[in-house]
């Protein structure tokens, strides 16, 4: 494969976990909640994927990841929706808790117990004709099932958000919770479901890392993706397709290090590793036009 082809392929690969996390975060933010705890949900999903594969292979891994993500999201929802705690402080604690707990559990259940924490990885699905498009073909059409699923999830989320009553209810809660409540919608319920969905997608993001990429678990392997995903949502302007494209852009930024290696560019590798973070800052600075963001984003629930 050419260096450019490999770059395109690794861009899509790096984008997949970000896209899952960011599409989940999009739904959460559209309900007016900012979920800094996403990092904790991703790492919980990654650990759940490892534990789940021990029981039932890849399917068990997916189920374990989804359940772990939802579980952590449930804890976040209890605090943010139930107790109306500050979203940002709660989220920070949830991220720390997820990182600490998974690290400790991994140490106790695998490292200390002498169990090797490797998993089988998903096979690559490829479409015969599309695969042979130069450069982009292998990048988009020869990928694990979790990447393929995104091609359905992103448009489906767009349809759901803009064409269904439930999607309208979600957006109403994020823009004007009081008005939504007056219309008979329960903001607390909508927010809880949105957070749980965000946890599910965060869990699948972790599953992608374990089941489709690394084939094992490592402490802190989420590596800040939960926070980057929040920036991806802003860069994607709070729409599903925009978010998916923004995730691809971030994936490309992360893949730059591989391209640089292949091309023999003599720039310190730390520069490439820091591009996604710097891009996040630039994206947030550029996404200033406030009218795009949900109006009630981050506001503590009052009703």
């Amino acid at each position, binding site marked *: 494969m050419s260096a450019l082809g490999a770059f395109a392929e690794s861009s899509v690969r790096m984008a997949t976990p970000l896209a899952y996390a960011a599409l989940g975060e999009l739904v959460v933010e559209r309900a007016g909640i900012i979920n800094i705890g996403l990092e904790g949900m991703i790492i919980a999903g990654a650990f759940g994927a490892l534990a789940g594969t021990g029981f039932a292979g890849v399917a068990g891994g997916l189920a374990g990841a989804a359940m772990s993500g939802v579980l952590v999201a449930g804890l976040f929802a209890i605090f943010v929706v139930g107790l109306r705690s500050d979203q940002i402080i709660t989220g920070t*604690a949830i991220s720390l*808790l997820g990182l600490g707990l998974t*690290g400790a559990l991994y140490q106790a259940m695998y490292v200390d117990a002498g169990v090797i924490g490797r998993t089988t990885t998903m096979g690559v699905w490829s479409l015969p004709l599309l695969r042979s498009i130069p450069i982009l073909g292998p990048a988009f059409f020869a990928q694990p099932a979790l990447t393929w699923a995104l091609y359905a999830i992103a448009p489906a989320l767009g349809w759901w958000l803009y064409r269904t009553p439930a999607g309208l209810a979600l957006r109403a809660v994020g823009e004007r919770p009081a008005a939504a409540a007056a219309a008979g919608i329960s903001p607390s319920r909508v927010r809880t479901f949105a957070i749980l969905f965000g946890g599910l997608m965060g869990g699948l993001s972790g599953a992608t890392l374990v089941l489709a990429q690394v084939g094992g678990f490592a402490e802190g392997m989420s590596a*800040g993706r939960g926070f980057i995903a929040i920036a991806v949502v802003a860069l994607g302007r709070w729409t599903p397709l925009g978010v998916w494209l923004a995730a691809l852009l971030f994936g490309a930024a992360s893949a730059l290090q591989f391209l640089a290696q292949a091309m023999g560019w003599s720039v*310190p590798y730390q520069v490439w590793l820091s591009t996604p973070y710097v891009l996040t800052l630039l994206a947030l*600075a550029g996404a200033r036009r406030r009218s795009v963001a949900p109006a009630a984003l981050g506001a503590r629930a009052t009703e």
Partner: protein
Amino acid sequence: MRPRATHDIVLASAVLVAITGLALGVIAIGGHPVLPALAALLRGSFGSPFAFFSATLVRATPLILLGLAVGLAFRAGVLNIGGEGQFHAGACAAVTVGLALGGSLPRPLSILVTVAAGTAGGALWAGIAAILKRSFGVLEVISTLMLNFVAALAVSFLVRGPLQEPTHVYPYPPALNPSLQLPTLAADTRLHIGFLAALGLAFGLWWVLRTTARGFRLRVVGAGAAAARSAGRVDVTGVVTAAFLASGAIAGFAGAVEVTGVTHRLFEGISPGYGYSAIAVALLARLHPLAIIGTGIFFGALEAGGAAMQRDAGVPAQFALIVEALVVLCVLAIDRLGPRTSEGTQ
């Protein structure tokens, strides 16, 4: 104000009891014998004068300083969770200047210059996020976090690149010249004067917040930015930016104190997450500068004892991280933190 203070003490005690219970649960679930683990925890933190002065208080020093940095920012409604990055920036700046100075200046002066450089480095790193907030409305929670990752990478670059020791074998710079190392408080201890500086700063901040007009404006802005702007004619943006920079400066100072007082060199992972632990330190102290001394020592003991627990009883090192997260959640659950934190930022 008395009932409030009593309430805070009751709250803090309740949190401590809850945490102790949960922590014991974590040890037990991990499959480790509880009593030997606890014995190791106590031995490593308070068990001997050496454990207390050279482990607990040495670890408490950056936690108190970073806790003060977090507390000051949160009081102004600035959710600066970039203490980790500002600490790294301070350490980088101090070591860069320190290595350039070598032994060329008299000791007090060279320490002063080095620590000042670290303080400026921390303020500069926070300044990036402060400008992004001020001019572009970027949420500081995310920007400071992103800058934490970049700062850790910058350390990685410096210790493998421009500052690397001359043989280019090990990923760290040469040790700082002895004239740049902070004096210890007694001959047989690792505890250095940085601890006294932390105590002094805590009292200083308490004084400023409590008695000065500047401190009053900061508290008003944190309590409600809109009201401060309309009723008090306070320059909210100015106060927020100043608090942000001061918070970064304190975190950078903490980084400079760590390299001049403890490690005497820069290396990757020089902070085992002090910047994140400091959030728990500050919240448990309810952002009160003097209480931060107490919670900082508590967490220092936890880190020191946690290290002993890992060494002697095999309890995973993440133990301290879990307990810190639980502290924050307990404080939130019991009190929901009230309006001191983020409601003031608009």
